[in-house]
């Protein structure tokens, strides 16, 4: 039996002497992985965007103009907290509100200096419990908030967000179906490509058999080769994806409309798992080819 190092050396030698088929396979498999990865990344981001919106469903209750003392504010907050479906509440004093406004105006904050007095009211921000039925809940919470004595006006989630988020479940379903098809396509294209690559060794395999090579001796380096092929295709795809992410990420401004959302890339563990999976997919292509040709030779 041969040591793994010697097998790997033979695998690399095989690649060196058959550069073109291996390069073609690398590019093909890399592109397939890139497509699959791009889809996955898009899905992850859309979902996290929608989740950010959903988790961030808030209602703002503007208080009547008055000098609220601390005890009064505590009462109002308490009353708001009692409302069913409220996750947490926060008091935003009008001074804070004008300061926030100034910050978000940035260079144009000077405009505020012309104001004789702060026109903004005190407010409390209520975050609604996330989960199914959020949209009905926020409506109910808003209604209850307006019922409070000291509240003058209530604003909550915009209608378009509502409609958009209604698609979340449908989208997830479509994504899962589409993703499964995509994975199946990636696997079969990879297996097909690996088979083509191995085909370039066909004569060689036959000759090795004739001089007494065992199947193990023949296939171990091929298996190593295809695992490496998958791995490098994965690295290529991941690098390219990161490039796109970096390019797009620099151009997406985070604003109030995206809530807590930030464009995401795969986590380190996810990247590592993806690369391992890529290598395994390559190896699987080799195994499929092995099983097929072994079945062919039995006949």
């Amino acid at each position: 039996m041969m040591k793994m190092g010697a097998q790997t050396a033979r695998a690399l030698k095989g690649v060196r002497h058959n550069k073109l088929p291996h390069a073609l396979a690398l590019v093909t498999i890399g592109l397939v992985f890139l497509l699959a990865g791009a889809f996955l990344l898009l899905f992850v981001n859309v979902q996290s965007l929608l989740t950010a919106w959903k988790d961030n469903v808030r209602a703002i209750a503007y208080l009547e103009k008055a000098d609220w003392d601390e005890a009064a504010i505590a009462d109002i907050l308490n009353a708001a907290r009692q409302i069913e479906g409220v996750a947490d509440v926060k008091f935003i004093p009008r001074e804070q509100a004008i300061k926030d406004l100034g910050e978000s105006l940035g260079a144009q904050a000077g405009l505020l200096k012309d104001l004789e007095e702060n026109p903004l009211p005190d407010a409390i921000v209520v975050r609604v419990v996330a989960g199914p039925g959020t949209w009905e809940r926020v409506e109910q919470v808003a209604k209850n908030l307006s019922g409070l004595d000291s509240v003058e006006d209530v604003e909550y989630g915009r209608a378009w967000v509502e409609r958009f988020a209604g698609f979340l479940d449908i989208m997830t379903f479509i994504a899962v179906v589409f993703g499964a098809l995509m994975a199946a396509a990636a696997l079969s294209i990879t297996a097909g490509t690996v088979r083509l690559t191995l085909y370039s060794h066909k004569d060689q395999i036959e000759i090795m058999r004739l001089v007494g090579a065992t199947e193990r001796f023949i296939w171990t380096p091929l298996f190593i080769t295809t695992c490496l092929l998958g791995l490098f295709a994965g690295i290529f795809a991941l690098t390219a994806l990161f490039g796109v992410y970096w390019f797009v990420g620099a151009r997406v401004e985070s604003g109030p409309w995206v809530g807590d959302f930030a464009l995401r890339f795969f986590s380190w563990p996810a990247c590592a798992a993806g690369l391992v999976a890529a290598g395994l997919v390559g190896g699987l292509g080799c195994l499929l080819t092995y099983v097929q040709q072994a079945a062919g030779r039995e006949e």
Partner: protein
Amino acid sequence: MSENSKDAIRLFGVTKTYGGQKALNNVDIAFYRGEFAFVTGPSGAGKSTLLRLLYLAADFTQGEILVLNRNVKRMGRSGLPMLRRKIGVVFQDFKLISSMSVFDNVALVLEVAGKDRKFIAKKVGHLLRSMGIEGKANALPQSLSGGEQQKVALARALCGDPEIILADEPTGSLDEDAASVVMNILLDYHARGATVLVATHDKNLIASAQKRVVTLVNGAVASDTGGP
């Protein structure tokens, strides 16, 4: 020990058909251990087919074959490579691996058998030198002349020190001098105990060696002379 144990190769009523046409027809023949024999006959007589059955590269239709006292029909998956390592074959079409250097082509046989690198380097170097092609060690086979390729094929067949050597037209691409060099190498291995079968058209080669000659015609043994 059975009577057959002195035979390296024995065929009992072997028939091989290709699509209804008989390439070998009811062949009964034996070669004893350490024998040197020629297999001759016109083109298409079945010489290559006979050798092919002996290194188990093709099934046969009828009969039984024993090689080194193994029933080749009963050979298991793992037995087959082990038996092939005891047989060195010079293929009529060389069957060199085009993506490997001359050295690697020859070394393959020893790698397959699990020999270590130092041993392989020494052995292969020695063989290439004895055939005068050591300068081509790093070349790819297709850059060699037909005669040089034939020598590489012979070197590969010999480098595992096989018990049986099957040489299919081993001098087909060689001039007379080179042919006699090859012939002497084969006789040398025979002298050291190997069983050697040479399939050839070359009447001069046959005449020069004074050995057993089996003549095939239309897949059957037409004559068998000079044997024990």
